[in-house]
């Protein structure tokens, strides 16, 4: 029994002269929430489209739930593209049943499953209405139902939170977490780090079509977390920036966040600061995914240049 929901091996995709995805390998274990991160144009959408066979990879192989990717395997995936879309003139209920039917769910069965979902997203009163009569927010929810009504084992969502208001975001996040508790593997791409940080167990960061970071969130943070110090004090701390070994200082008002260069011991900073300031707080902290993201991408950009 293979424990991976998705395995990508050395996939590559080039469009007219520019390489969108380069020799990318990924493993998404079952039952986790996996975040595919990267700046705009990094190749996230292209990668997900290759998994869904909307694009064919130029090289490499894709396995879904332990089998080579084919249409039967893809029926076990729910895919919500970044560009949402439903048939505008179809009645909501028929639309959702249809979306499940093209994933191989019989109409009767789909109709039965539909009720609880409509209730959950308070769309019951709208089930007989045409889709284009629904508000944007309602359409987003409808889209989500369309993606999960066939009870996929893997849920792939490209930028799931884009265009959602905070309430909609919470509703969708709760739904995702419920599905996850039920055993669904969730893959989502995003550049909104706070969403990812709250939801994901594992992340992969890609930039310019290459994977530059990969692993469990806690692991990734731990890897980057040994040299960031939060510092609160009384007095003039402007000298800290000039100390040897200090890479970057960010002033958050209540405290400073100090990033040390690799190989420099926070203990040295503590000694120096204690000698010249009255300290209220000195803590070695984990950097946010946001920082890791920005730093890693910037470094990768410089290396590539």
């Amino acid at each position, binding site marked *: 029994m293979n424990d991976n929901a998705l395995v990508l091996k050395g996939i590559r995709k080039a469009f007219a002269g520019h390489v969108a995805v380069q020799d990318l390998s990924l493993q998404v274990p079952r039952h986790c929430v996996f975040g595919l991160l990267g700046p705009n144009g990094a190749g996230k959408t292209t990668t997900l*489209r290759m998994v*869904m*066979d*909307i*694009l*064919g990879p130029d090289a490499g192989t894709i396995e879904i739930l332990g089998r080579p990717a084919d*249409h039967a395997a*893809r*029926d076990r995936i729910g*895919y*919500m*593209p970044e*560009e*949402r*879309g*439903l*048939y*505008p*003139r*179809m009645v909501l209920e*028929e639309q959702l049943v*249809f*979306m499940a*039917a*093209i*994933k*191989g769910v*019989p*109409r009767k069965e789909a109709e039965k499953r539909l009720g609880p979902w409509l209730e959950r997203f308070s769309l019951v009163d709208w089930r007989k209405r045409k889709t284009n009569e629904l508000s944007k927010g309602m359409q987003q929810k409808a889209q989500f139902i*369309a993606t999960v009504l066939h009870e996929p084992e893997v849920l792939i969502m490209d930028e799931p939170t884009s265009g959602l208001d905070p309430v909609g975001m919470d509703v969708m996040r709760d739904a995702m977490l419920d599905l996850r508790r039920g055993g669904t593997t969730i893959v989502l791409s995003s550049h909104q780090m706070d969403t990812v940080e709250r939801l994901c167990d594992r992340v992969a960061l890609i930039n310019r079509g290459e994977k530059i970071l990969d692993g469990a969130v806690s692991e990734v943070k731990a890897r980057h977390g040994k040299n960031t110090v939060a510092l609160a004090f009384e007095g003039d701390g402007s000298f800290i920036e000039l100390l040897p070994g200090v890479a970057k200082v960010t002033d958050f008002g209540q405290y400073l966040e100090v990033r040390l260069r690799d190989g420099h011991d926070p203990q040295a900073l503590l000694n120096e600061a204690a000698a010249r300031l009255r300290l209220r707080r000195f803590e070695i902290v984990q950097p946010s995914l946001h920082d890791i993201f920005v730093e890693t991408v910037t470094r990768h950009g410089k290396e590539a240049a």
Partner: protein
Amino acid sequence: MNAKLWAIVRREYLERVRTRGFLVATILGPVIMSALMTVPMLVARSSGKLLRVAVLDETGTLRARVEEALRSARFGDKPRFEVPPGSEEPLEVRQAELKKAVLDGRLDGYLHLPKDVLTSGVASYYGRNVSNRMDLGLLDRSTGEVLVGLRLADAGLDPAKVKDLTRPLDMTTIRLSAAGEHEDRGIASLIFSITLMMILYTSILMWGQLVMTSVIEEKTSRVIEVMASGVPSTQLLWGKLLGVGAAGLTQFLVWALSLLVLSLVTVGQAAGDFRMPESSPLVLVSFVLFFLLGFFFYAALYASIGAAVNTVQEAQNFVFPIVMPLIIGLMCFTAVLESPDGGLAITLSMLPFLAPLIMFLRIVVLTPPWWQIALSLLLLGFGILAVVWVAARIYRVGILMYGKKPTFPELVRWVRHS
């Protein structure tokens, strides 16, 4: 049938059939068609108003006879001319008077017989309306008969006897086909075959265009990516073709049934002896078959255009080269009717993009050898598979292309690389 394909066919069918346009066309179609058929007949039968004509005679001997001939001239079984009694005024006065009467509307026209009309055989008709061919033909014939009668009498022959002896041959045409003998109604069956072909032509284009706009709509509403992630593009395409094709057939069925009812109830009474030319089962079957196959062929092309462009306006440039062969086929129809078994007709009916029109026309006017029908269908079938194959590839690439409209070389690249 594959459950996914069935779901798509069902959706496409219901979406077409439930539109207001479909309802209107389906209900109004037969009404308009039967109106087109009955109105001219009713007009022709009823146009009860007689044509008021006078005779201006320079010979001084012919007037009474000609007037009498015109009064007794019959069209069908009804008189056509009303001839007011003439007068013996001097010629110039009379002519001016008649001219004035025509212009005032008291007369429809007058016939001028010059002095030498008996020898030269040349006369003139002056009228406000000189385009009523049927009436003028009758006027010409009736007057001519009087003149011929006089000439015969001068030569010492009995006009009645001559007429009897020179009676022309009355030839009926009987079409022989495998299905049996049919007395051919000539012009009616010609009009019938051309009408059927025109319906075939417009329906193939109309329903094909509908497939194109529906693909463009899927692109605009972005639902196409969801669809493409669930179903292979070939299946997506077939689902569309079958669903929309079924909607087209539904419309034909409604039309056929209501025409049948209408012709039994109203048209039958109005038209009297006019009957629809008998359409053999072969013609009906091949109409359905060639509509579906022709539709598949052209709709697949239309679908690929829809996938390649962003708006209906952009599509127009691409539509023309695709419709072109169909228009050429339409223009060939006289040549095909002339010799439906000739080399040109046989060749054209084998080309997949023309077969739906030309082979169908040949089947209507004569029954081609079965192997020709079979070969034509076979080639058309291969043509459809090839077109769908190409279209599915353009579809797959095109659905993710937004923005710039592709050029033809780019389309070729899409087909080669997807």
